[in-house]
């Protein structure tokens, strides 16, 4: 019993200490950090680094880029994946099976396997250094997982629902928008959260396709601060705080949904 409490306590500290360290260090100066890495900030709550980073970097621009890319990627992935999942559920012939298999295959292959040929495609289409390019790639890469989760859910919907609405003379589109989508909301929201976290935090695709400062997203900008600020951890952690803020706030308020969504993504992806 004592061992149990002890093990849990140690691990809790292992999470709490680094988080506290990031918050405190972001309020310290470089010399304070160097002299006493574990100490409290000398001037209490000090937001000088935050003001500094917004002044010297196009932080707001990165923030907007990340938001646009994430929102667009999540919305379109969800929409297209829901349409495909609906079609797979409705199609009882071999085509439905083949489509499902093709997307399942996409889940097995890690995206990084494709980075070289994918870069060629994006380059040939003239989509490097564009948010649209990032969005299109994001949609394609996360669609398999989304299709998988949503198909699994839609297959559990009672068949009578489809029949009833067909008799009513509802077209497939109407059935999709007014029956299937509302009923799939729990599954859609779980998938949405999983996608939000993935796209907001992604580094690989911005790293591959974006070199122009105007189109950089937060993780890429953050990575490049490392070259600029080297071991100036107060500045780096200020960046970390800003880049993580939306996800952390969302996590605090929507914790249950986060855990469900991220787990669905893990189980299925």
């Amino acid at each position, binding site marked *: 019993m004592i061992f149990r409490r002890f*093990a849990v306590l140690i691990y*809790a500290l*292992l999470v709490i200490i*680094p*988080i506290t*360290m990031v918050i405190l*260090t972001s309020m310290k100066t470089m010399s304070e*950090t160097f002299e006493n*890495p*574990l100490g409290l900030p000398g001037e209490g709550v000090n937001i000088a680094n935050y003001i500094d980073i917004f002044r010297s970097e196009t932080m707001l621009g990165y923030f907007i880029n990340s938001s646009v890319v994430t929102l667009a990627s999540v919305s379109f992935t969800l929409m*297209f*994946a829901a*349409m*495909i999942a609906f*079609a797979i559920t409705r199609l009882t012939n071999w*085509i439905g099976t083949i*489509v499902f298999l*093709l997307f399942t295959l996409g889940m*097995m*292959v*890690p*995206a*990084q*396997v*494709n*980075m*070289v*040929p*994918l*870069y*060629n*495609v994006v380059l040939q289409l003239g989509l490097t250094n564009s948010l649209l390019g990032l969005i*299109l*790639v994001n949609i394609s*890469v996360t*669609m398999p997982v989304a*299709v998988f989760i949503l198909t699994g859910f839609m297959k559990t919907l009672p068949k009578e629902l*489809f*029949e009833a609405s067909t008799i009513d003379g509802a*077209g*497939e*589109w109407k059935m999709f928008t007014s029956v299937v989508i509302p009923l799939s909301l729990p599954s859609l929201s779980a998938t949405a959260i999983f996608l939000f976290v993935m796209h907001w*935090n992604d*580094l690989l695709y911005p790293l*591959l396709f974006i070199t122009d400062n105007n189109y950089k997203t937060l*993780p890429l900008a*953050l*990575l490049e601060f*490392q070259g600029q600020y080297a071991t100036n*951890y107060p500045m780096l952690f200020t*960046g*970390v705080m800003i*880049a993580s803020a939306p*996800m*952390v706030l969302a996590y605090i308020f929507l*914790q249950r949904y*986060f*855990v469900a969504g991220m*787990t669905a993504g893990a*189980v299925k992806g």
Partner: protein
Amino acid sequence: MRASKNIYLFLVPGFILYSIFFLYPTVSAFFYSFTDWDGISSEFDFVGVDNYIRAATNDSIFAQAVGNNLSFMLFVVIFQTIFSLIFAIILIKNTKFNIFLRALFFFPTILSSVSVAFIWSFIYDPSMGLLNTFLGISGLEALQQNWLGNQNIAIYSLAFTQVWFHTGQMLIIFVAGLHAIPNDLYEVAKIEGASKWQTFKKITWPLLAPSATIVVAYTTIQSFKAFDLIFATTRGGPNHSTEIIATYIYEVAFRSYNFGYASSISVIFMVIIAIITYLQFKVLRSDKVSY
């Protein structure tokens, strides 16, 4: 009720994107792997299986990257699975305190790899890092290390970071698995006087097999996908000691502009993942259980 022909239209937008940005690149990786393309010029030659021969026999860095990737994977799979299972068992009951701790342990999962990389670079920093400072205070100076600079241990320092990053997520999967085990089984075990270890071995573990399969499979794939974390922390250094297959593909393609060769490594990467996934499912699915 048969679907009308219109249903095929639902496949169109998603399928077009998926074909352009996933299926076509995957297939073309095979094509480029037989060329010497540099990624820039419009001309290239077919070199047969030369790239594959080079990878298999004449590239010590690639061999090192595969080795590092396997060490990284083993460390992460073993520790992440053990940690998340132990914590799941300890935190199984849905008390307020346990729910809070599960949420706390889960927290790192929502951070970006770049943020996690910075946090742990600071902790591992040889001069002002938390870890060495802590060891110094506790009188354990002998254990102080250049955690990311020492070629022999850097990959394990990174593996520990990965464990910290995702243990909370796997914990949740185990908790869900544990909650699915019917309670009467434990009551019977209690009545029959089974020890804690016997109960774990005969009831919990076999019935937890499906969750364990998911955790081990997911953790393995994650270890091969740790590109973001490793790239942001060490970029594969020092001296390739933390190079994994994915970071090496990036280096060969975008630093040395050897797209043909990078493509062949990608194909080998795909085959390695396929083999590991197949073996895992064979081993873990072999002991099927029923209630």
